[in-house]
């Protein structure tokens, strides 16, 4: 019963967050000092423009506009993208773009965690010694290069000079698994470097703290090997911050890979947002941001549920909230 109450409260909180974020974005769209109708219908007459404004609620006040947008949004109508020749639906674009971004994000996370976890464990185990120093110095250098710079360097060297990998575009699974990955490698690398050093640092710090705990000495006194102690006794209680930050960075990666997605033209959500800004497609922008906010909230819940698995103590603490 207590548990149910906790989760209901949590969901309610996140729901409020969602409403606030989407309302904020909707206000921003209204504040932009340009007339949307003029932009999307440059050659129409004033009557047509007035009809357009009314159709998306721009003739109402900020709250009326928001409610109309929200009503459409929950029914799956995310609005339209306007061309001089006609329109396309925002949802149509996002449905195509979303899987690409999700895959890019998943590969990036798997790759970053796959590298960062062994590095973090090793550098905590060898804290202060050579392996640790080499790892932290290398990561420091890499983390100070922004992702887009890594992307550009990769394009020049691996894409153009060596011509090993395609520099642009996206390939689906059906075009061949290898083809698919060939298009993903460079974007994933560009997005991962910063994450790898962030994750390694988090894990290292938490592991070092845990290694000082009595239960580690206790595990040693049972005659367990260092490897077993590190992975089975120390890694799990030390990984909560790591996994929390990884889950929270998911939301950011879905829409936040704007620059990288644009450089590599992967046509994911980030790319769509980039295009929406360039093309003054404000409805598209507003709905995309709302979808990303949904993902943020979703991964927040994942963190809540997941941390109970990693550390059983939090499960009971919740009932005392």
């Amino acid at each position, binding site marked *: 019963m207590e548990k149910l109450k906790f989760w209901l409260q949590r969901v309610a909180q996140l729901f409020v967050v969602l409403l606030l974020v989407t309302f904020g974005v909707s206000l921003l769209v209204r504040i932009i000092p340009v007339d949307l109708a003029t932009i999307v219908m440059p050659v129409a007459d004033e009557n047509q423009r007035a009809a357009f404004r009314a159709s998306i609620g721009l003739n109402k006040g900020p709250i009326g506009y928001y409610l109309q947008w929200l009503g459409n949004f929950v029914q799956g109508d995310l609005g339209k993208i306007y061309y001089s020749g006609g329109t396309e639906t925002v949802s149509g674009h996002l449905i195509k773009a979303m899987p690409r971004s999700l895959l890019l994000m998943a590969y990036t996370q798997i790759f970053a965690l796959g590298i960062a976890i062994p590095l973090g464990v090793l550098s905590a185990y060898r804290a*202060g*010694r050579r392996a640790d120093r080499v790892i932290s110095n290398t990561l420091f250098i890499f983390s100070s290069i922004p992702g887009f710079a890594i992307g550009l360097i990769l394009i020049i060297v691996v894409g153009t000079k060596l011509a090993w990998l395609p520099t642009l575009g996206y390939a689906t699974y059906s075009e061949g698994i290898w083809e698919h990955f060939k298009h993903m490698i460079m974007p994933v690398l560009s997005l991962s470097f910063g994450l790898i050093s962030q994750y390694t640092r988090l894990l290292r710090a938490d592991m070092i703290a845990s290694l000082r*705990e*009595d*239960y580690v*000495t*206790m*595990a*040693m*006194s*049972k*005659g*367990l*090997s260092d490897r*077993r102690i590190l992975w*089975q*006794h120390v890694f*799990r*209680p030390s990984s909560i911050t790591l996994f929390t930050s990884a889950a929270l960075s998911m939301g950011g990666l879905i829409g936040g890979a704007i620059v990288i997605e644009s450089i590599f033209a992967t046509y994911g959500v980030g790319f769509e947002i980039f295009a929406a800004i360039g093309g003054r497609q404000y409805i598209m922008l507003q709905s995309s941001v709302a979808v990303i906010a949904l993902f943020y909230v979703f991964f927040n819940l994942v963190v809540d549920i997941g941390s109970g698995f*990693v*550390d*059983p*103590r939090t499960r*009971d603490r919740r009932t005392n909230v």
Partner: protein
Amino acid sequence: MSSLLSIKNMSVNFDTPRGSLEAVRGVDIEIPAGMSVGVVGESGSGKTVMCRAAMGLLQGSTVNRTGTVIFDGHELTAMSKEQVRELFGSGMAMIFQDPLTALNPVRRIGVQLSEGLRVRLGMSKSDAMARSKELLELVRIPNAAAVLKSFPYQLSGGMRQRVMIAIAISCNPKLLFADEPTTALDVTVQAQILQLLRELREDLKMSMVLVTHDLGVVAGNTDYVAVMYAGEVVEYAPTKKLFADMRMPYTEALLNSIPRVDHKSGTRLTVIAGRLPDPTNRPVGCSFAPRCKYAQDKCTTDHPELKTDPDGHIYRCWFPIGESL
């Protein structure tokens, strides 16, 4: 009588930001096979460090251990970490001071109890689990099957300590270090745990090093006593002999400060006036001199040597009780 564990001139230094901290200084001690040896001393006197250093459990670049430790014919101080590890569980085991911090918070009791059996005795997963249940019953934990599935935070302090004892004895060790096994518990539970340890020692023929700062516990549970002060063993004698004829002024002061009946668990022995000397900056002479009522000039200038009476009673004092008074 042969020694199961002999520690020869062992010192432990920690590198700290304030300089080198000498936690244990030139300790010589023999633990006879089959016996229970008490280690007493105030908080900070180096009891825990001595036990952990003897087993080789202190690790890290800031720890320097010197001297010789021989256990059951193996010279631990000359062996690699991996070789010493082979002796853990079935050779030596340890009960830790605080069962809450010594059990891993995120792993189930059953896993923590059975892993030693699997790693050290090579048992299968299901055999180890079955044996774990027996071990929990052996340390009188009711409802053992449920406890196997619980996490440490779900148990009471007394239960946690029983679990830790079960872990420590799981591979039938020859020597059990019990580092203040009852300090974190309330008085009635303390008595139960000490009773349990006595019985287990009898049944399993274990030797034991029982660390405590309570001379009352020492009297009823040990054959020998080592008294530690400021990192040194300052007196070592059979328990009966020590209580009948103590030589060290420090031991006497400790005895006079035995907690009163209303003594609450966990309170430290600070009843002797004054404090332990700063471990990074020990006095030249006798470490106890500033607090000793028998101190004379020599005590502040010369470090007392170890003396051994003909009956084997060892102490470290220039003017022992019952001699030059």
